[in-house]
C-alpha cells in the first residue's frame, strides 16, 4: 500500500511540464486539444473501434455522459475539492439549468446560446439562495442540507403542473446552426465540440482563480476555517462565490443537456446524479482538475463500454467512494504535493 501512495503521476506530469519552454507547451496543448476534438471520429477506424460503446451511439456517449460529467465534475470540484464544502445536491443546479432552457424555449423565442447565460444566472441565483443561509453551517450539516435541497428541487418540479409535473417539458428547441455546425439528434459531434469548448473555458477560468485571491481564500478555508477567519479571509463571501461558480457550471451543463435531449423531466435529476458527479471528483482526486477530468472520463465511459457494469453503476460508485476514501483519499491524481515537499526541503537546509 505504501508504494501505491507514493506514486504521484500528477507531480511527474507537472515536473515534465515545467521543464518545457513556451513553444513546446503551446504545441502540446494544441495537439492535445486537437486529439480530444477528433475523439468523435474514434469509432470509425478499425484500430480505434475498441472505443465503441455497445448499447448506445459512441458519439452520443461522448457528449452525455462523458462530456457533461467532466464539465459538471469540474464545477463540483470548485466546491468540494477547492473549498472543501461537501455539496450533495449538485444535481439541483443541473436541473435548474435544464428547466430554464425548457421553460424559455417553450414560452419565448430565445435560442440556446441566448438561454445559456440566463440558465447560468438562474443556477447562480439558486446557489446564493441556498448558500447564504447554509454556508454558515458546519461541514456535515451542509452536506445534509444540500442533500435535501437537491431532492426538494426535484419534488417541486414533480408537483408543479405549470412546468409539466412528472412528464416534464418536451420539444425543447435545439441550438440554431452556428459556424456551419448543425445541432440535432444526427449531429452529436457538434454538441461534443460545444461541451469541449465549455470544458476548456472552465479549465482556463479555474486556473486563473486558483492562482489569484479566490483560490488562495478557498485553499485557506479548506485547510482550516478558524485560521482563515483569523487571517482576515471573509469566508462566507468566498464560500458563496465558490458555490455560485459551481452552480453556474452546473446550470450551463443543464442548458446544453436540455437542448441535446430536447426534453427534461424530474426523474432525470435524482440524487444518483449528484452521487455520480461526486464520485468523479473523489475518484480522480479532489482539488486537482486533471484528476477530476480523468475521474469523470473513466466513471462516465466505463459503464457504457462494459455493459454488465451499467446496471450496477451506482453500486460501483458507492464502492468507489468507500475504497478511495479508505485507501487513497487523495484519489488517482492527487493535488500538488510538490510545494509541500519543496517547503520541507528548504526547512531541512536551514536547520
Amino acid at each position, binding site marked *: 500500500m505504501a508504494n501505491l501512495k507514493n506514486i504521484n503521476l500528477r507531480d511527474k506530469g507537472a515536473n515534465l511540464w515545467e521543464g518545457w519552454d513556451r513553444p513546446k507547451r503551446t504545441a502540446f496543448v494544441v495537439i492535445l486539444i486537437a486529439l480530444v476534438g477528433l475523439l468523435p471520429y474514434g469509432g470509425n477506424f478499425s484500430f480505434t473501434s475498441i472505443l465503441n460503446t455497445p448499447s448506445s451511439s459512441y458519439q452520443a456517449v461522448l457528449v452525455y455522459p462523458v462530456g457533461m460529467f467532466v464539465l459538471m465534475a469540474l464545477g463540483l470540484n470548485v466546491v468540494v475539492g477547492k473549498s472543501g464544502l461537501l455539496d450533495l445536491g449538485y444535481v439541483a443546479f443541473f436541473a435548474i439549468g435544464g428547466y430554464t432552457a425548457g421553460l424559455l424555449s417553450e414560452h419565448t423565442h430565445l435560442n440556446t446560446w441566448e438561454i445559456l447565460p440566463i440558465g447560468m444566472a438562474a443556477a447562480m441565483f439558486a446557489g446564493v439562495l441556498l448558500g447564504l443561509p447554509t454556508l454558515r453551517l458546519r461541514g456535515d450539516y451542509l452536506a445534509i442540507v444540500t442533500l435535501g435541497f437537491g431532492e426538494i428541487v426535484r419534488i417541486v418540479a414533480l408537483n408543479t403542473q405549470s412546468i409539466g409535473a412528472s412528464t416534464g417539458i418536451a420539444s425543447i428547441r435545439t441550438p440554431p446552426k452556428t459556424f456551419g455546425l448543425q445541432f440535432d439528434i444526427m449531429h452529436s459531434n457538434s454538441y461534443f465540440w460545444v461541451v469541449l469548448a465549455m470544458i476548456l473555458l472552465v479549465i482556463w477560468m479555474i486556473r486563473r482563480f486558483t492562482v489569484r485571491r479566490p483560490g488562495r481564500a478557498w485553499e485557506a478555508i479548506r485547510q482550516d476555517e478558524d485560521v482563515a477567519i483569523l487571517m482576515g479571509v471573509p469566508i462566507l463571501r468566498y464560500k458563496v462565490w465558490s458555490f455560485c461558480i459551481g452552480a453556474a457550471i452546473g446550470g450551463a451543463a443543464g442548458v446544453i443537456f436540455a437542448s441535446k435531449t430536447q426534453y427534461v423531466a424530474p426523474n432525470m435529476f435524482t440524487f444518483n446524479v449528484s452521487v455520480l458527479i*461526486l464520485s468523479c471528483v473523489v475518484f480522480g482526486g479532489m482539488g486537482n482538475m486533471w484528476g477530476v477530468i480523468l475521474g469523470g472520463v473513466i466513471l462516465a465511459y466505463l459503464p457504457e463500454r462494459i455493459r454488465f457494469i451499467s446496471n450496477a453503476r451506482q453500486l460501483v460508485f458507492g464502492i468507489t*467512494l468507500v475504497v478511495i*476514501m479508505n485507501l487513497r483519499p487523495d484519489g488517482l491524481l492527487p493535488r500538488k504535493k510538490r510545494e509541500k515537499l519543496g517547503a520541507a526541503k528548504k526547512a531541512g537546509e536551514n536547520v
Partner: protein
Amino acid sequence: MNFSVVTSQFWPLLINGLAVGLIYVLISLGYTMVYGVLRLINFANSEIFMVGTFATVIVTRDVFHYTSAHDALHGWKLIASLLLLLIASMLFSGVTAVLVELVAYRRLRSKGTNRLASLISAIGTSIMISEGVRILTKSAPVPTPRLLSKFNLFTIGSVAIRIDTFMVIIAAALIFFLVDRFVTKTLLGKAIRAVSMSEETSKLMGINLNRVISATFLIGGLVTGAAAFLYMQVYENTVFNIGFNLGLAAFTAAVLGGIGNIRGAFYGGLTLGLFEQFASAVIGGQWKAVTVFTVLVLVLLFRPNGLFGEAIQQSRV
C-alpha cells in the same frame, strides 16, 4: 390550502402525528447517539432502517411462511410472531449498523483524517447498501403479509384508534424509555456519555473507545430496526430507497431536539411528526418532504442547538 381540516380532522391528525412522530423518535436516536460520540452524521442510518424493513418482510414471508392469503393471527401466536419479528428486525439493523461503523468510519478514525473523508466514506456505504438492495429487488416495492387484522381498538371522543397505531405508540414510547434508562443508568451507558463529553478524557479513564463506539452504533441500529418493524406493521410496504425521506425527517427531528441529545430527540420527533401531519393535511401530502426540509433549514439557521436550548443540552448523550 385547506385550513378547515385542522379543526374538522383534529383528533385523527393528532393520533397519526403521534404515531409517525414516535417512529421518527426511534430513527433519530440512530443519528443522535452516533453524533454524540463521533460528532459525525451517521449518513447510513436511513439504509439501516431500510435493512430493518426488509428483515421484517423476509422473516414474515420466508421464515414464518405467512402469505398475504393467510388469515390474520390471534392470541399468543400473534404476540409471539410480532415479538420475534421485532427482535429479528432489530438484530438485522443492529448488525448492519456495526458493519457500517467498521467499513465506513473505523479505519479513517484511526488514521485521524479530516471529516470530509469520513463523510464521503459514510455516504458511499449508504449508497452501497441501498443499491445492493435495489439490484436484488429490481427496484420493485415489496409488500409484507399482514399479520395483524386492523380493527379499531377503541374510540376517544369521535376518533377510532386502530390497533396498529395503538401498538406503535405504546411500543415506541416503551423502547424510548428503555434506551433512556439504559444510557443514564448502566455502566456502558455511562461510558457512552463519557465518550460524548470528551474522547480524550474517557480514553485516559480506561474506556475502550472502539468498543464504546461499536456499542453506540449497535444500540442506534437496534432502535432503528425496531422503528422499521413498527413502520412495516402500519404501512406494510417497503422499497430500496424508503430510508431517504424517513432518514431526512428523522435527522430533522434530531436537529430539532438538539443533535446529540437523547431526550431532545424525543421532543423533536414528536414535534416534527405532529407538524408534518397537520402541514400536509393543509397543503397536500406531496409537499411533505418540502415541509420537513424547510423546518430543517429554519432550525439550523435560527436555533442550531435545537428548539429546546441549553436546559436540555445539559443532558447530552
